[in-house]
């Protein structure tokens, strides 16, 4: 009681700072305004819009989506691309990172790997069209050496989109895995070795359990990227066939049929699918140890 009584005599500025508000707090205002203006408001507007379809019913858009295979199959098609791609990226990133973390010149390698991320999907897609196309170097080389008689079909189908997602997604996955892996105290492995654990046991009992939380986050980030694939699905895929991903459906609804309400509904469905998968992965993560990966006081 006496404390609160005394606080009333303090100037407002001091009382505010005691509660954690001071001048520095103002620095987050622009971010909050941006968030509200460009994310929170549009999101709720989209949500509202999705329940106001052209036919006037509340769930009309969702009924349309889930009764038309051309629309609802985009979910499975997108998942069929994004989940295998993410898993493949992680499955290749982990062993490579295991080796790379012991290297001294990591910098050069990480620079090379960051390049595809900075170049952007479109440039990568253009490059792949030229290189892997029927008249591209890749097929011509194989034909020249007589390994194949007709060009392999590597673009304008599932394979094309898959490969481009690997090329753009792998560096990102790898760098994340590498940073998680280097965060694990190397003496833990040494300790395990002196206790009789061979390389496989060391990975299974020490590295992997400590890496799982990081892998879960990596999976989520990689999956979100792959799930919202659009440019490479259009440029390198078969946008009306096997790579008709959910973003294409939303795009067509909005800009070909001018049905913003349906497009919003598709966006909402996309969000729900993303959240469901991420939620499941993060829930699974909580079954594992999540504390610091050090071996004791440094």
């Amino acid at each position, binding site marked *: 009681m006496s404390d609160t009584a005394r606080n009333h005599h303090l100037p407002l500025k001091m009382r505010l700072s005691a509660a954690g508000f001071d001048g520095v707090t103002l620095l987050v205002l622009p971010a909050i305004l941006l968030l509200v203006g460009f994310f929170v408001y549009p999101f709720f507007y989209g949500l509202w819009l999705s329940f106001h379809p052209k036919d006037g019913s509340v769930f009309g858009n969702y009924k349309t989506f889930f009764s038309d295979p051309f629309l609802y199959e985009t979910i499975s098609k997108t998942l069929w691309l994004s989940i295998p791609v993410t898993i493949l990226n992680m499955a290749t990133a982990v062993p490579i990172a295991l080796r790379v973390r012991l290297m001294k010149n990591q910098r050069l390698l990480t620079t090379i790997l960051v390049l595809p991320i900075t170049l952007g999907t479109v440039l990568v897609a253009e490059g792949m069209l030229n290189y892997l196309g029927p008249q591209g170097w890749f097929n011509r080389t194989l034909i020249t050496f007589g390994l194949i008689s007709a060009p392999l079909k590597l673009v304008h189908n599932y394979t094309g989109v898959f490969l481009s997602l690997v090329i753009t997604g792998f560096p990102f996955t790898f760098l994340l895995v590498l940073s998680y892996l280097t965060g694990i105290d190397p003496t*833990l492995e040494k300790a395990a070795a002196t206790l009789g654990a061979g390389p496989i046991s060391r990975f299974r009992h020490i590295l992997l359990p400590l890496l799982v939380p990081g892998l879960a986050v990596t999976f989520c980030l990689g999956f979100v990227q792959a799930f919202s694939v659009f440019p490479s699905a259009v440029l390198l895929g078969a946008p009306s066939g096997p790579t008709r991903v959910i973003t294409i459906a939303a795009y067509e609804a909005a800009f070909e049929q001018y049905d913003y309400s349906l497009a919003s509904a598709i966006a909402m469905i996309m969000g729900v699918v993303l959240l469901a998968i991420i939620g499941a992965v993060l829930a699974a993560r909580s079954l594992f140890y999540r504390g610091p990966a050090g071996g*004791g006081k440094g």
Partner: protein
Amino acid sequence: MSATFQSFKSLRLDRVGRDFGRHNALKEIDFSIERGEFVALLGPSGCGKSTALNCIAGLLPTTRGSIWLDETRIDVLGPEERGFGMVFQNYALFPHMTIRDNVGFGLRMRGVARAEAGKRVESALATVRLTDQADKLPGQLSGGQQQRVAIARAIVIEPPLVLMDEPLSNLDAKLRLEMRQEIRRIHAGLGSITLYVTHDQDEAMSLADRIVVMRAGEVRQIGTPEDLYERPLHLDVADFMGYRNRIPCRVLTRSGGMASIDVAGAQLEGSIRGTLVGDEAVAAIRPDDLCVADVGLDAVVEACEYRGHNFFGSARGPGGVELFFRSPKRVDFGTAVKLAAEPAKVLLYDGAAT
């Protein structure tokens, strides 16, 4: 594999060397340790003591030489095949496993039956007095408790050799003293070899049966704590064993193992160590043994501090050399004093010796 090492007699290092690129971290290390001995590897940082320990553990491959456990050559085996227990400086406990699982890890890797392993884990935990913490995670324990877990984890596999890499350096002073006793007690109960790396001569002397003093990748002296304390062979060993005063001097006359020396006009008697060929010498004296006297080296007191039983001070001696001395009573700044030591406590080394 490790089972065959149970009844071993000795560990022997035969001209073991290790290079990092062009840098000789370890030149040619030769020594052997008998079963039951507690040996400390002592030296300043960068002297190669940890490198030597890691080579013995198998965590670093050797560049030259061989390591033997009786007649078995072990430097060709991987760390997981040697079956040595190792205690790391930062404890290296597996953060995602309970204390019980940490301690049981080595037994699990060896395929020891669950019931038997459980019993041995309990007894190891009892040895380090942590039975009631068995179900916690390492992060929930204090530093001293974590280090005891690390020790339990290393000894539960009943290794022929327990390697400790500065295990107490992260603990506070009081805990360090307690843990010394604990480690000594555990060693006595095991009957195997303990090889203990430290840069703290106090720790080495209080723990070890024998001390291996290393410097710049070489073994400089091997001996009991008394040997090293009283009779350091080289000036650098003396330096490391607490002979803080190193006074350049000239040898005047010699008789037997003794010599009289001249330090800028003042004369002292000392005992010759190693080969003292020329006239140029260095006299090494512990601060403990250099006291205020009626005759001796002229010096001006620069500092004096109280350390329990005595005062310890520093003074500027002949030729500007800094002298550290002991005094039963406080000596004021700027006082001119004479400092002297018993001849047996003044060790004379060749001036060229480093």
